[in-house]
């Protein structure tokens, strides 16, 4: 009895299974929904889709959110050693002329020869010049008992920047400074005193020249020249500097009259026999290759632009170029492949031979040559980008044409096409409404994978410097910097993020393409 009951129960449940009540009815899905369902069941493809969406958000929305612009430059304050002054020890004769027309540079050279020969007079072009030794390394040159110039090694500098020294003063001062004590010296005469233009001057042993009791000028063997013409170096500065140099110090500190401390570094250059005095100064420079920080998450590039922002805009270029190229290739390929497949005969023959020719043309070298040509012609970067897309698109259509043709050839023979012919549909309608929709799945799959390939091609070209050009960013030309070995070894943040984005994007396109193929045609699933 109980067994019978069981049997009855199972019969009821079996009947329920076959009933056509609403809750029992099999859910009917449209082909599109089926494809979608199969696609979303494929976990790897969904991962690819998520990556793609993330990339698009990063590039298009990120570019809008980013506080910086694509080509905004950043600066930083840098402490740089700037040449402040140079110190040389004067070892050569210098000349000052009273009358430049007479004491010409040739005469100066002749007087130098005479000095080295220790002659008392010399002749040049029939004119006799007298050479008088006035003191240590100090000579005066005379012509017709008139002094025309002096040759000396010690240099006189004034204390205040406004003073101009007359020839007479220099002559008298140097004479006093270089005076050698000898037996001929007049008794009781103080050679350190001299008078010029009615003013009394006195020179001390350190070479300081006092006007009355005020310091007026000083004599030194060293020449201290400021690097900038508007800087006047005080005697105090020079004295302390020379002291440091004599002590062979490399750092030099100076407190000016306002009590401000300055720091300088000293470096001796054996080639020019001079000391370079460098001052650390604040300079505003481009913030190049700065490490990742709060303000620049991925640092800055070689031009001082924010890397993160460049990546976003570069993503726009890379993604958009992929799309446009693929659209150009699709339009050309579908039209030509469709015509070829549908009409057959000589049209097919002709178009397929064109396709064969295109297959044989080595595309990468052609693109490189065209890129180099555009380089040579200095094509505007924006126009160049358009050319690049046209070229890539034009070289990409043959494979699509072949695919479309093959599909149409096999579809043409199927019953539903015979039915369309039998029902008397127009050619146009037969192609557009019955053939093309059946080709579309394959087209979508090949286009999805094609975009990935295009992005790699564009990136490779930009990497070689033949694709997208500065100021536009593209993932390829961002990595381009890695050609500089120093960047390769030191600044990972310049090229690794761009490379990873590129890799992820292309991988995602391929994953989605794979997933779509499986979803469109479950029989071919592999």
């Amino acid at each position, binding site marked *: 009895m109980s067994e019978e009951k069981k049997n009855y129960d199972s019969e009821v449940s079996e009947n329920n299974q076959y009933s056509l009540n609403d809750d029992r009815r099999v859910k009917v899905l449209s082909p599109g929904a089926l494809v979608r369902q199969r696609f979303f069941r494929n976990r790897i493809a969904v991962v690819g889709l998520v990556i793609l969406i993330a990339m698009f958000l990063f590039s298009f929305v990120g570019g809008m959110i980013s506080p910086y612009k694509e080509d905004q430059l950043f600066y930083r304050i840098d402490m740089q050693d700037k040449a402040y002054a140079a110190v040389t020890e004067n070892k050569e004769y210098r000349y000052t002329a009273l009358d430049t027309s007479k004491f010409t540079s040739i005469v100066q050279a002749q007087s130098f020869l005479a000095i080295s020969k220790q002659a008392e007079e010399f002749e040049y072009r029939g004119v006799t010049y007298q050479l008088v030794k006035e003191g240590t390394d100090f000579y005066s040159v005379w012509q017709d008992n008139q002094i025309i110039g002096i040759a000396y090694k010690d240099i006189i500098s004034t204390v205040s920047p406004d003073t101009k020294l007359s020839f007479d003063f220099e002559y008298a001062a140097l004479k006093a400074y270089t005076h050698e004590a000898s037996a001929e010296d007049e008794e009781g005469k103080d050679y350190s005193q001299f008078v010029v233009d009615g003013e009394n001057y006195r020179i001390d042993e350190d070479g300081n020249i006092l006007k009355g009791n005020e310091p007026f000028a000083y004599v030194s063997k060293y020449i201290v020249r400021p690097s900038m013409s508007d800087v006047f170096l005080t005697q105090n500065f020079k004295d302390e500097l020379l002291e440091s140099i004599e002590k062979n110090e490399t750092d030099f500190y100076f407190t000016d009259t306002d009590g401000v401390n300055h720091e300088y570094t000293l470096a001796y250059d054996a080639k020019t026999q001079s000391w370079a005095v460098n001052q650390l100064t604040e300079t505003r420079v481009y913030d190049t290759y700065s490490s990742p920080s709060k303000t620049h998450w991925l640092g800055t590039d070689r031009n001082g632009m924010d890397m993160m922002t460049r990546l976003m805009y570069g993503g726009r270029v890379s993604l958009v170029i992929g799309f446009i190229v693929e659209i150009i290739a699709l339009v050309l390929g579908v039209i030509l492949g469709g015509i070829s497949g549908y009409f057959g005969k000589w049209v097919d023959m002709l178009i397929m031979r064109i396709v064969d*020719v295109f297959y044989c*043309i080595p595309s990468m*070298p052609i693109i*490189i*040559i065209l890129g*180099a040509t555009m380089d040579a012609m200095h094509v505007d970067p924006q126009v160049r980008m358009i050319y690049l897309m046209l070229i890539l698109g034009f070289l990409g259509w043959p494979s699509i044409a072949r695919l479309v043709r093959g599909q149409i050839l096999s579809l043409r023979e199927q019953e539903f096409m015979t039915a369309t012919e039998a029902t008397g549909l127009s050619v146009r309608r037969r192609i557009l409404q019955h053939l093309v929709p059946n080709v579309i799945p394959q087209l979508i799959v090949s286009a999805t994978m094609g975009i990935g390939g295009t992005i790699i091609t564009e990136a490779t070209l930009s990497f*070689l410097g033949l694709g997208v050009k500065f100021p536009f960013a593209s993932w390829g030309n961002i990595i381009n910097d*890695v050609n500089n070995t120093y960047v390769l070894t030191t600044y990972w943040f310049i090229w690794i993020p761009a*490379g990873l984005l590129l890799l992820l994007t292309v991988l995602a396109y391929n994953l989605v393409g794979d997933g779509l193929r499986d979803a469109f045609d479950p029989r071919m699933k*592999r």
Partner: protein
Amino acid sequence: MRKGYDDPSAFFMNDSMHDFDCIGEYNRNDVLKEKEGIAVRKYIIKRILISIALLFLVAFIIYVLMRSLPTSYIETIAREKSMQPGSKSYEEWMAQLSASYGMDKGIVAGYISWLGNAFRGNFGDSWFYTVPVLQRFREVVPVSFVMGLIAFVLELLIAIPLGIIAATKQYSRTDYTISIVALAGISLPTFFFASLLKLVFSVKLGWFDLFGLVGRNYEQLSTMGKLLDKAHHLVLPIVTLVVISIGGLMRYTRTNMLEVMNADYIRTARAKGLDENKVIYHHAFRNTLIPLVTMIGGSLPGLFSGALITETLYAINGIGYTSYNAMVSGDIPFSMFYLVFMALLTLAGNLISDILYAVVDPRVRIA
């Protein structure tokens, strides 16, 4: 990518009838073979003729392209060349250009004159390398070939077994891993991967040089040392080539293997209780070899084409890097030669794979 011939039943018949043919109807088989031979020969001759015609057409297109590069560009190049110390004058460069490419003639006449020179093996003097194009080509092509050959053999050794494993264990974790790795290899931009390799192995580990084919002390080495030095410098480029192209080959093997595995004769083999290993390696793999052999045959000419990007990245003086430099510097004679050479290689590859396809796969012959 060529799809495998998709009519398993025909093949099954052929396969099972094979023994029977050999023993019983010897004569009929002989006649059939003769007919087949004629058909194949006809097919091959037709393909060769088409390829030659295509080559002329492609060379013509390349010639037109080179001719229609804006003249100002050619003039610029001639001017630049003439500015170099000790160079010929601008007019002479222009005259040489016109002479070697028949620039003064019309496009068709110019093409014919170029073709005439090319047939005599005269491709002109390279502007960039200032030696005859062919001489330069002979100097650099061995490196490219050796590099390509080693990489290709490695690819085959790695990709084919992995592809087969992935196909036999479809939907397993191994399959997914192999598929994703293959896709990653396809998606990996060459220059990025090469940079990564350089960073890790040249900079961080210091195992290899960053650039070049020979080391600094190359001249001091013995013959064996020189060979080893070159081999050492080729390691990274070959690794790059292998990793970049392994994905495609792996997928190709897997796809074709799966196609075979879904065939009826495999089901039959299983149904009659054959060992799974025998099914896979005896029945399935042998049939997968058809597309593989045609593909491999078709790739052989490509070994001479060099690796444009990889050689450039590692500054290996092969045909790829040499022609990259020539192309970038506007060396028209060398570029022209290189482009035609590449087209020739592509055509040869297609021809070989078509012929192999007809030879290897009996179904094509009968059809």
